């Protein structure tokens, strides 16, 4: 076992240490806190690179290396935790630490004016630690613990500006919604433990993802003929649904944009939401349990569920994104949609397909979010795209990098990473043996993606600047009053913010080339195989057709976008949307996010409220009555006991005491102090004694 495997724990431990230290730091020590966080993250990144290099060097030698240790004992069993290093972990480690590092650096610029700067970096470091813990965990339990930590830090960071009621509400919503999924996850975990007695993933044949455990799970069936493995897999996937914002638990993710933009970029675009996808990838052997032996395209009921949920989410969120006005909300729904893509990829194509999109998406979505943050920062906290426009002149670097990110997200052919990863998913979906529908849904979502991104770019960067409140005082300090901010002098962000943008943009382009059909390095790496360049890969299995289709779709989307938003320049911020003019009713439905929140409000929350009223009523009248009766019974009992004490026990004692006292007094009368009476008594006693003696002798 090499050094890096033994010390893999250092990677999450470093940010955790930074979080602990900055939690103890005073709010004034800004530089200390930020350099602590960035330094720990840089070290973690370096260690991750070492781990990655180790994983690279062991391609073809060993699939994974694990280190387990006993954690706590209950009964006769030891509960073990552990970590592992396999290609999946290595890739995720590098992605999380690298994106995290860039976002940390960006945050020093973005959060510069915030008074809780130190707290922010404390939370960010804690988040990074938890996320890295999720990545390296070799135990479902350890993964779950870190998973919950991630949820906690997400809550803390969404509600970072807790003075804003909307932020506080969003944090609460995110926390509660993901808890619903996590409950199912916990149930799945417990079920798994009860079936296999193992929570370690890999433990020299005894782990829960290894053949013997999987065989046990497949062999048993539960309700409706479902195998146990399917049931557990779906429960665990429910956790992923919550965390990754899949339908129907997606509602929290757009609201989470209330947090600071770097948080949105790091947590709600690049890493945390990817944790759900990562989880599915991690327990993939469980998901695919029972399928035909080791075929990558094999599908099981669990994977079908994953596929359908992913496909529906992809379209659903993309539709909503078309009609949003808030720059970050568009990106949020885009994230939901892309996460659906990843799930779809996992469902139809296996780990490599889904994870490839996860990695590329992490980079370009982080880029887009940071770009959006740069725009918001430059426009003094303005988030409504109707009030922007023409920013390309004021923020050239932001515009250029944003455009790259946008093209990558749309899947612009050949030169952008999104094209290759999305293409892999589409290709897998075409080949899916059960239904073609997921492919059509995915294609439609790709079209919509191109459309809404074009719309956003037109609104924000192109055209003329639209300032409705042109000449108000420039520097409003209060960030809460979003609409009072002024647009008259948007400015480019400082280098500390644009630098990460540029680096991310470079990766948004370059990363695509590690997973082309001709050189599927990424997929082989995850399967721990070597790769050789094979240009003919482009022409196998109908790949050209799929590539052509997706290219067409992208161009259609871009063209539609231009048709609606670019053809005529948008002049006024109050002017209705082009699509709104075309189909006001549908657009309205989309703008209101299919009324999902309202639907939940009217159903689950109302039922919940009604139930709470019911239980309140029960508490008040039934249980309270029972408690009242019991308490009065006890009162009566105690009254009885007290009466017994007072009138029987005490009276008895008093009586006894009095008789003793009286007897004492009687005897004391004998003891009258007169010696003569004592002597008299002696005389009487003597007489009696002698009389007795004589009597007894004479008898």
């Amino acid at each position, binding site marked *: 076992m090499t050094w890096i495997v033994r010390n893999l724990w250092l990677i999450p431990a470093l940010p955790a240490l930074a979080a602990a230290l900055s939690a103890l730091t005073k709010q004034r020590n800004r530089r200390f806190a930020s350099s602590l966080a960035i330094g720990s993250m840089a070290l973690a990144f370096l260690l991750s690179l070492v781990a990655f290099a180790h994983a690279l060097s062991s391609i073809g030698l060993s699939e994974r290396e694990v280190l387990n240790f006993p954690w706590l004992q209950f009964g006769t069993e030891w509960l073990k935790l552990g970590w592992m290093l396999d290609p999946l972990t290595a890739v995720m480690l590098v992605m999380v630490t690298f994106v995290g590092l860039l976002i940390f650096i960006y945050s020093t610029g973005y959060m510069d004016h915030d008074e809780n700067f130190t707290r922010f970096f404390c939370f960010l470091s804690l988040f990074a630690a938890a996320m890295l813990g999720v990545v390296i965990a070799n135990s479902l339990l350890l993964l779950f613990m870190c998973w919950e930590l991630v949820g906690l830090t997400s809550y803390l960071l969404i509600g970072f500006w807790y003075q804003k009621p909307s932020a506080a509400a969003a944090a609460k919503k995110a926390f509660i919604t993901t808890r619903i999924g996590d409950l199912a996850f916990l149930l799945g975990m417990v079920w798994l433990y009860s079936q296999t007695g193992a929570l370690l993933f890999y433990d020299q044949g005894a782990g829960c993802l290894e053949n013997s455990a999987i065989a046990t799970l497949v062999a048993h069936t539960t309700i409706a003929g479902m195998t146990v493995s399917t049931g557990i897999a779906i429960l665990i996937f429910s956790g992923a649904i919550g965390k990754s914002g899949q339908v129907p638990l997606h509602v929290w993710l757009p609201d989470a944009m209330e947090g600071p933009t770097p948080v949105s970029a790091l947590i709600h675009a690049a890493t945390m939401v990817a944790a759900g996808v990562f989880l599915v990838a991690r327990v993939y052997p469980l998901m695919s349990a029972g399928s035909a032996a080791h075929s990558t395209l094999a599908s099981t009921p669990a994977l079908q569920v994953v596929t359908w949920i992913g496909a529906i989410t992809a379209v659903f969120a993309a539709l909503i994104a078309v009609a949003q006005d808030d720059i970050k909300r568009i990106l949020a729904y885009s994230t939901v949609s892309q996460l659906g893509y990843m799930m779809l990829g996992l469902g139809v194509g296996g780990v490599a397909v889904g994870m490839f999109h996860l990695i590329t998406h992490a980079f370009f979505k982080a880029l887009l979010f940071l770009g959006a943050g740069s725009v918001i920062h430059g426009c003094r906290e303005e988030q409504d795209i109707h009030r922007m426009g023409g920013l390309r002149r004021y923020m050239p670097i932001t515009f250029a990098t944003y455009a790259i990110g946008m093209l990558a997200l749309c899947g612009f052919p050949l030169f952008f990473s999104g094209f290759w990863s999305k293409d892999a998913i589409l290709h897998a979906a075409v080949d899916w043996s059960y239904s073609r529908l997921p492919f059509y849904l995915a294609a439609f979502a790709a079209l919509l993606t191109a459309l809404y991104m074009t719309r956003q770019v037109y609104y924000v960067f192109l055209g003329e600047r639209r300032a409705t409140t042109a000449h108000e005082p420039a520097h409003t300090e209060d960030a809460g009053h979003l609409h009072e901010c002024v647009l008259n002098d948007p400015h480019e962000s400082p280098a500390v913010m644009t630098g990460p943008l540029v680096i991310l943009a470079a990766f948004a382009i370059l990363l695509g080339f590690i997973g082309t059909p001709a050189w599927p390095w990424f997929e082989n790496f995850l399967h721990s195989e070597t790769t050789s360049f094979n240009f003919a890969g482009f022409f196998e299995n109908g790949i050209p057709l799929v590539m052509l289709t997706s290219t067409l779709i992208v161009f259609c989307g871009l063209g539609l976008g231009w048709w609606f938003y670019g053809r005529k320049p948008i002049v006024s911020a109050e002017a209705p949307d082009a699509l709104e003019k075309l189909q006001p009713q549908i657009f309205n439905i989309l703008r209101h996010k299919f009324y999902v929140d309202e639907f939940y409000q009217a159903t689950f929350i109302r039922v919940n409220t009604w139930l709470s009223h019911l239980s309140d009523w029960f508490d008040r009248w039934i249980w309270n009555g029972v408690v009242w009766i019991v308490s009065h019974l006890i009162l009566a009992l105690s009254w009885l006991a007290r009466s017994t004490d007072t009138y029987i026990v005490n009276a008895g004692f008093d009586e006894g005491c009095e008789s003793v006292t009286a007897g004492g007094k009687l*005897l*004391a009368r004998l003891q*009258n*102090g007169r010696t*003569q009476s004592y002597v008299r008594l002696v*005389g009487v006693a003597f007489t009696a004694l002698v009389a007795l003696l004589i009597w007894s002798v004479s008898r």
Partner: protein
Amino acid sequence: MTSLTSCILLSSLLFVIGLAGALTRRNAILVLIGIELMLNAANLNFIAFWRYHPHSETLTGFIFVIFSIGIAAAEAAVGLALIISLYRHTRTANIDEVISMRG
């Protein structure tokens, strides 16, 4: 009729007279006198039993009476000193008034 029985009868009579006096009289000195009489009755008993014992040459009862008289002298001295001391404390020799031993 100088017999053992008559001696003992005399002795017991003396004892009872002393006892009656000690019980009845209130003056501490008279009580003491009663006690002396009882002591003398005991002495008479010793002498009588010595006199009518077959081995009177051992002188047991005889010597005992000598010691008894010595003790009686000591007792009288201490008892009278006590009475004087009591009288000095309470200004009375009436033992009915000395009831500090009352329970």
